């Protein structure tokens, strides 16, 4: 009896093969999960982050990924970094605005643990990182894409806190701003074939969540989620991939929150 020849599955190309993506804040947390997922999906990647050690770890796992250390709140440095990434990949089709800071400060601090000046400075830092830098980086990327007539998508990571979350004036305002930018860019860039999508996570099981909330509060939050658990970083990354792959999702907010309503 002859053994049948082994069946060979027809080769399916990875879904993002040939696409070029820039991910900000990809050195750790959700950004790192997005980097892992998009490279696995076949995309060529560049990562911008100010965490040089984290960038080295990315390159150790993905030697082909282009990494550029930069503080994105410096608009000129960010523009130069975008230029480096754009040239290294010979163009960009995808931008993932993920870099962000999660910081809390009450509007009124009856405990006097912070000064008014400290709370105002925190506002500036959070808005600079989570809103102003996103605007600047997107400008740098979109200009280059438009000049080369490249079509693609801008995915920005928002948050369900955009609906308001006590103790997070700056963060909530910045994330609401991300939703407004997404709606604006969808209309402005749509005619160029560039889409804009906001992916808004609820609470993901990341080091940043555990740093921002006490263990008891994490358990409390998980209990408030209808699914009774935090999301995983890869579930957020999967939503980013889906927003990239589906060419008709535009100008909208994709919530990845387990059903939690703020």
């Amino acid at each position: 009896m002859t053994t049948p020849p082994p069946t060979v599955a027809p080769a399916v190309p990875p879904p993002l093969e040939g696409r070029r993506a820039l991910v900000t804040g990809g050195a750790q947390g959700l950004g790192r999960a997005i980097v892992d997922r998009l490279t696995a999906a076949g995309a060529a990647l560049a990562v911008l982050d100010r965490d040089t050690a984290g960038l080295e770890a990315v390159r150790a796992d993905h030697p082909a990924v282009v990494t550029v250390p930069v503080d994105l709140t410096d608009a000129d440095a960010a523009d130069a970094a975008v230029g480096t990434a754009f040239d290294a990949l010979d163009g960009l089709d995808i931008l993932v605005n993920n870099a962000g800071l999660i910081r809390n400060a009450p509007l009124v601090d009856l405990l006097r643990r912070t000064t008014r000046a400290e709370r105002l400075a925190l506002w500036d830092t959070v808005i600079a990182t989570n809103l102003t830098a996103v605007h600047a980086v997107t400008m740098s990327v979109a200009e280059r894409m438009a000049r080369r007539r490249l079509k693609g998508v801008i995915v920005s990571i928002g948050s369900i806190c955009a609906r308001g979350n006590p103790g997070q004036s700056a963060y909530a305002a910045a994330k609401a701003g991300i939703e407004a930018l997404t709606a604006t860019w969808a209309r402005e860039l749509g005619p160029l074939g560039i889409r804009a999508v906001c992916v808004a996570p609820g609470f993901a099981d990341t080091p940043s969540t555990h740093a921002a909330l006490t263990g008891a509060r994490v358990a409390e939050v998980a209990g408030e989620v209808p699914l009774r658990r935090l999301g995983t970083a890869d579930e957020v990354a999967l939503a980013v991939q889906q927003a990239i792959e589906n060419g008709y999702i535009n100008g909208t907010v994709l919530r990845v929150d387990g059903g939690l309503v703020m």
Partner: protein
Amino acid sequence: MPTLRSVMSQVLRLPVDAIDDDASMRTLPQWDSLKHMDLIVSLEEAYGLTLDGDEIAAMTSYGAIAAVLRRKGVTP
């Protein structure tokens, strides 16, 4: 008049016996700066008194709150 423990347990959403004599913002993670505002307002309503800025900033433990209340003639 409600006891201090019962006011605190309601605001912090903890069983009354979780508020022991050593309870403080350090020992109870639920008691954060936002809950503290709730707590102050609840104490003022429960005991019909007004707390000033120094008192509010100092009331970070069960013992410290009890001391302020006693000074104001309230038995916690």
